[in-house]
């Protein structure tokens, strides 16, 4: 469905003696896996540190995909959304997934109806696919979904 762009980007983030930050960007073939690109980036960072007086604070490797036949429904706005809240395998840690452009018909008693078939299907997919929160705790149960509006 989605088409992978031919190159994965590596953004290297630098910090200089004044605290200012800068970025270097380069690319590897996007057919390479995460481990291979990260290994190349780590190696490149060690070489770069020999030629620069600035310090490297982070690098980000990114693969991009596009969907060429995407068409939004007429009259829609992305500002109405739904935030799905999941319990995770770690006590007192939660995971959230936001869906933009959600019809207001999903709202029941001020909340997004998690019994709605479409919302329940997303929730089941998030859990079955092993999505997690930013700390790596895997989502286990859809516990609520909150409508959001960005003015």
């Amino acid at each position, binding site marked *: *469905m*989605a088409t*992978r762009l*031919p*190159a994965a980007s590596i953004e*290297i983030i*630098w910090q*200089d*003696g004044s605290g200012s*930050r*800068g970025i*270097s960007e*380069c690319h590897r*073939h*996007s057919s390479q896996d*995460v481990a291979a690109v990260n290994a*190349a980036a*780590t*190696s490149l*960072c060690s*070489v*770069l540190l*020999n*030629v*620069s*007086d*600035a*310090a*490297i*604070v982070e*690098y*980000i490797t990114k*693969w*991009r*995909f*596009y*969907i060429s036949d*995407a068409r*939004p*429904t007429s009259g*829609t*706005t*992305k*500002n109405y*959304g739904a935030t799905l809240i999941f319990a995770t395998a770690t006590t007192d840690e939660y*995971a959230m997934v936001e*869906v*933009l*452009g959600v019809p207001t018909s999903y709202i029941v008693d001020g909340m997004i109806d998690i019994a709605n078939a479409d919302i329940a*299907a*997303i929730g089941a*997919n*998030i859990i079955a*696919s*092993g*999505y*997690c929160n*930013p*700390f*790596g705790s895997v989502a286990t149960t859809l516990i609520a979904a909150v409508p959001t509006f960005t003015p």
Partner: protein
Amino acid sequence: MALVAKPTLVVTIDYIDSTGSKGQSVTHLPAATTMAAAIVKVDATVALLLASTDCAIVGYSIATGKLETSTPAPTLGSRVEGRATLTFRTAAAKTAHFGFPAPKGALTAATGGLVSTQADLAALITDLLGGYCDSNGSDLTALIADELIFNRTSIRQRTTDTSPAT
């Protein structure tokens, strides 16, 4: 240097609505997920999201990386505004640039160019020519120019010494 892997892959899904406004939603997959597996999962999720949104999903990105947990102090006086810029020829006969900030003094020639034969810089160039490509996926094949450029360097102020042989 202690670059530590981030705990997750960051999945960013890009939306567009009928007014042309763009939005994103972000979720995560465990870092151990392979790219092939991640693509299968995200494609499946996007298909389900499309049933619930009136927006169009125009693409997504999957990102990861590493964080430096013990950043060494940058050299006093180093500035990111000064960049060593390397220009490469690609296999598709186009040019691609790579720059890094605050090049060490030993790399800079009196003419304002870079000394690409200096051992550390030569090692960097060799690394970049060994598997890196441009944004279209065309391999870097040869270094054709190098120079030191500051943020406010005008075209007239740029050095004429860009030969990689110096």
